[in-house]
């Protein structure tokens, strides 16, 4: 076949082209990333606001829990430890955000730069939310790359703590939402715009306890191959659904 001949011939191109191509391609990425100073543009999401009435289920006393599986990783590219090291990240035991296992962080490479360099889209709609305090990053070798950030809901003032988890394993990840051991939770499985599932839950409802505290709610879902977990003490279950709508995923 002619194309096979051509393919084979490409095996004889100059050594320097072969040796340098990867560096040239990666150098381009670094250059391009330097031009990116904000990630707001990456979050230009379509916001579909609706007044949907959602009926929640009640998980009552006991260790009942809500499980659902989502597929993560898909085509998502996660930088390797070596690539992070190339841009100045270092291993450190002092990383305050390290979980078990080795972690990487850097004073010279910010989470925003990592996000820009490796084109990791982040849910963060600047029209409705304001970022607070910047991001933190944790890289657990052979496990995941996680980003932590807090958004203020411009409308309600509620603080929303986000965890964005990029799993390294091309595998299934299971999101598990636990009910409290002796608490009442309202929960709802939702179908997002991309067809995947989300679970929204509000803890300790019906004034069982903590009646003076603002409602605590969570949302767990997978978006574009990444796992998101949102926690807030400022809004209830309906408020959390509204957040998902403002983010453009629901």
């Amino acid at each position, binding site marked *: 076949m002619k194309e096979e001949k051509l393919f084979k011939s490409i095996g004889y*191109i100059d050594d320097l082209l072969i040796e340098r191509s990867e560096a040239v391609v990666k150098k381009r990425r670094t250059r391009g990333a330097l031009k990116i100073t904000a990630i707001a543009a990456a979050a230009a999401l379509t916001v579909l606001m609706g007044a949907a009435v959602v009926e929640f289920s009640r998980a009552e006393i006991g260790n009942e829990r809500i499980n659902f599986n989502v597929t993560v990783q898909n085509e998502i590219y996660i930088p390797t430890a070596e690539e992070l090291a190339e841009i100045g990240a270092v291993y450190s035991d002092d990383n305050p955000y390290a979980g078990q296992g080795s972690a990487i962080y850097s004073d010279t490479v910010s989470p925003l730069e990592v996000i820009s360099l490796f084109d990791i889209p982040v849910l963060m709609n600047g029209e409705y939310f304001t970022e607070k305090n910047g991001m933190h990053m944790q890289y657990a070798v052979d496990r995941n790359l996680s980003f932590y950030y807090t958004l203020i809901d411009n409308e309600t003032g509620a603080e929303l703590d986000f965890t964005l988890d990029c799993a390294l394993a091309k595998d299934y990840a299971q999101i598990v939402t636990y009910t409290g051991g002796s608490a009442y939770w309202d929960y709802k499985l939702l179908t997002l715009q991309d067809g995947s599932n989300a679970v929204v839950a509000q803890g300790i409802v019906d004034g069982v306890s903590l009646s003076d505290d603002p409602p605590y709610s969570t949302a767990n879902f997978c978006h574009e191959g990444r796992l998101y977990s949102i926690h807030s003490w400022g809004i209830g279950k309906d408020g959390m659904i509204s957040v998902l709508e403002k983010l453009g995923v629901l």
Partner: protein
Amino acid sequence: MTDNEIIGLFWERSEQAIAETQRKYGNYCVKIACNILGNYEDSQECVNDAFLNAWNAIPPECPNVLSAFLAKVTRNNAFNRIKYQNRQKRGSGEIEILLSELSECVSEKDFSDDLIDARYLGEAIGEFLKSQPEINAAIFTERYFYCRSISEISKMSGFSKSKITSILFRTREKLKLALEEKGIGL
């Protein structure tokens, strides 16, 4: 160990040459084979064969760029291997896509395998690539030498997949013209 030191071991016929080559370039070569074969075990065998080829070739060969030398041998082995395999098993389909793209560079003129030496054609392609913008040549090389997927190149470069596809398309078009101008009757 430097490349020159490794090549020196080959020339001394020291078996440590293979071990050092494996240590330094094992993963690099397996990745190349895997891009073509889509199977780790086959790729590993392919790389072992490549190192044996290197052992048999050096001396008298004395590669200028050891990594490129090993890459070429590995790629060639992987391609030969896949030609003998069931076509449905080819590299999870990626190599089929890649060959299909390359077929665009092939005109409908009469063609005979014996008319053109692959090495000569490769040199002509190399000359063409050197005349192109560096990034375009690198993307072409990553795609058609290293057989990386569009998606992987996109992630490496930061370009969108559509931009990579577009660059490759334009480069293939130019290559076709360049080869025709040289009178290479593909």
